[in-house]
């Protein structure tokens, strides 16, 4: 195995050929095999392989685009499992965007947030309330439900409303640090959920525990989005934006100030960094990604109620970030994908399989160890194993590498500006 990877290193042509072969084989088996979960997962896995190739970034994006937009929807479209695959892929996309948002808060700015799902809920309710008749209960004007065409604007509205709540949460919360911050954010997450649960009186805004049903599906030029294979493309588009935004922020003045605050608050301030503003910005941007996906979630489910936004959800998103690698964009994407697929597909499959076995009398489980109850246990065990063997995450965060030669050239300009001494006089390295 080592020999093989060594041989492949540096040989881009071989890498690309292998990758294409891999995609071909997995797509073909998915195309031919009816509803093969394994083939579907292996096909998704090709994106990870792609990440590890040494191809130029631009080419990687193009290939990823071809696989995500073309190959995956096309080859899974023939089997009876089509919609369920697209559903899985869509949910993965939603969680990836949220995990990337939380990664800004936890991974880059170093602020432990245990109530992150609140912003997802805010996004979902923002659309849910106005895309059902609910808004008519308290809005003095307007015609509700709004049409499905408003969905596209609501992605933006959800983004801003969530960002606004991110700031509102941040202002009181950022007075505390570390563990205390975690507890306060946990409280915030629960408060939001409970408020949504109880805001059916005195004025019925959220319809309480009953939730909001028949949320209008997105619509454009009379074309309606109702099936997972349609939502898949909406999620993909938003996700593309989120990834682009995250990467750009990470390696900018803003990203550096987040990391500086994470590493050392006092030193960061002494460099002129406004502590509160920097943290609030992290909260707001992180929240905005969740808000957008909340809107999509509401439209996709056509139903919103408070039970979708429990503490367990917040913790799951946090686990995605930690498992993937705090501060690492590719890591967090992988972490979110792994956890979502584990939850939605693998663990369910395993449980079904075990159930089948016990039904057939091959093995028998005592009541307390019934497979359905073991799901969480297996999930926990996997996390513990990862925490022990990969404490930095699946793909640990990497720092940028700067090209010394070009900087050397450029720095001469600055020397002319202010300093006339040779650099290596005096202080020796």
């Amino acid at each position: 195995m080592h020999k093989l990877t060594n041989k492949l290193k540096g040989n881009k042509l071989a890498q690309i050929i292998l990758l294409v072969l891999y995609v071909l084989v997995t797509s073909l088996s998915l195309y031919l095999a009816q509803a093969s979960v394994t083939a579907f997962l292996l096909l998704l896995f090709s994106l990870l392989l792609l990440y590890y190739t040494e191809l130029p970034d631009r080419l990687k994006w193009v290939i990823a685009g071809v696989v995500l937009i073309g190959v995956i929807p096309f080859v899974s479209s023939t089997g009876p499992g089509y919609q369920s695959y697209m559903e899985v892929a869509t949910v993965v996309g939603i969680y990836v965007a949220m995990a990337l948002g939380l990664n800004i808060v936890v991974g880059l700015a170093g602020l432990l947030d245990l109530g992150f799902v609140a912003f997802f809920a805010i996004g979902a309710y923002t659309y849910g309330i106005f895309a059902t008749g609910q808004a008519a209960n308290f809005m003095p004007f307007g015609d509700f439900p709004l049409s499905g065409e408003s969905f596209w604007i609501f992605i933006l509205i959800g983004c801003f409303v969530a960002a606004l709540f991110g700031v509102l949460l941040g202002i009181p919360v950022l007075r505390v640090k570390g563990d205390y911050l975690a507890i306060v954010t946990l409280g915030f997450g629960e408060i939001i959920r409970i408020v949504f649960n109880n805001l059916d009186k005195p004025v019925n805004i959220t319809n309480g525990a009953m939730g909001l049903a028949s949320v209008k599906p997105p619509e454009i030029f009379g074309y309606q989005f109702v099936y997972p294979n349609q939502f898949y493309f909406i999620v993909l588009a938003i996700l593309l934006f989120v990834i682009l935004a995250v990467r750009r922020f990470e390696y900018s003045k803003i990203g550096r100030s987040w990391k500086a605050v994470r590493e050392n608050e006092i030193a960061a301030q002494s460099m002129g960094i406004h502590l509160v503003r920097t943290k609030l910005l992290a909260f707001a941007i992180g929240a905005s990604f969740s808000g957008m996906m909340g809107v999509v979630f509401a439209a996709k489910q056509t139903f919103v109620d408070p039970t979708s936004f429990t503490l367990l959800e917040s913790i799951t998103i946090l686990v995605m970030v930690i498992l993937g690698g705090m501060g690492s964009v590719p890591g967090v994407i992988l972490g979110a994908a792994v956890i979502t697929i584990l939850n939605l597909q693998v663990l369910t499959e395993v449980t079904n399989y075990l159930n089948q076995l016990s039904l057939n009398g091959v093995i028998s489980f005592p009541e307390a160890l019934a497979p359905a109850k073991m799901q969480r246990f297996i999930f926990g065990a996997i996390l513990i194993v990862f925490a022990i063997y990969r404490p930095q995450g699946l793909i640990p965060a990497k720092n940028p590498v700067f090209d010394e030669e070009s900087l050397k050239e450029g720095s001469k300009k600055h020397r002319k500006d202010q300093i006339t001494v040779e650099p290596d006089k005096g202080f020796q390295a």
Partner: protein
Amino acid sequence: MSILTVSNLTKQFGGLVAVNSVDITVEKGSITAVIGPNGAGKTTFFNLITGVYQPDKGNVQLGSTSLIGKKPHDIARQGIARTFQNIRLFSNITVLENVMVGLHKQLRAGLVGTLFQTKTVREEEKRAQEEAYHWLEYVGLAKHLNEDAQNLSYGAQRRLEIARALATKPKLLLLDEPAAGMNPRETRELTEFIHRMREDLDVTIILIEHDMKLVMEISEQIFVLDHGEKIAEGKPAEIRNNVKVIEAYLGKSAVTPA
């Protein structure tokens, strides 16, 4: 012309008066040392100037602006930079990025510009990298640019802190025990370097230091703190022979043999 004027500065921690009615004036372009035994209140004095702590009484003035009530980041923007006695680098990011954080207040990139990677933002970022590299060259760390700051040797970490502080283009630079943990050769180089900074950069320097050779060689003015009070001030020659100072360092018996 004085650049820093501190008057009646006082800070208490519970019952302990860490800095007690201290008056200090620092001339523009000078090198000033603050000395005193451990626990004398020197670091606290720096923390009061830079806004890490708010004083209970007194005033701190940079040029003609009072710094009282200002937050640390505001004070940094006024032109004061510092290093820390217990090194405070951004450990998990690269050496170059550490210095780039020092350039923070000069960079204009905003949220929208960053999101769309406008030409201005890209050019500014490139310039920031170059300027940061330039500061690394200046302190002799250029070849470490891509290493994580935490992997540098102790002496190199101290130098990186200085480079980061210089990147903020300070008028006033506060160095808290810059030679701590350095060997004699490194200390000699540091002495030379501090002189050079003043010549090259038009910056006023105040340093806290225990190495008396360095202090006597480098500073034009020395303030001595003991138990939070200023017990002496003057030129190196005056301080060397000051009875109170010898008492503070060596105990009363050193001056008045029993």
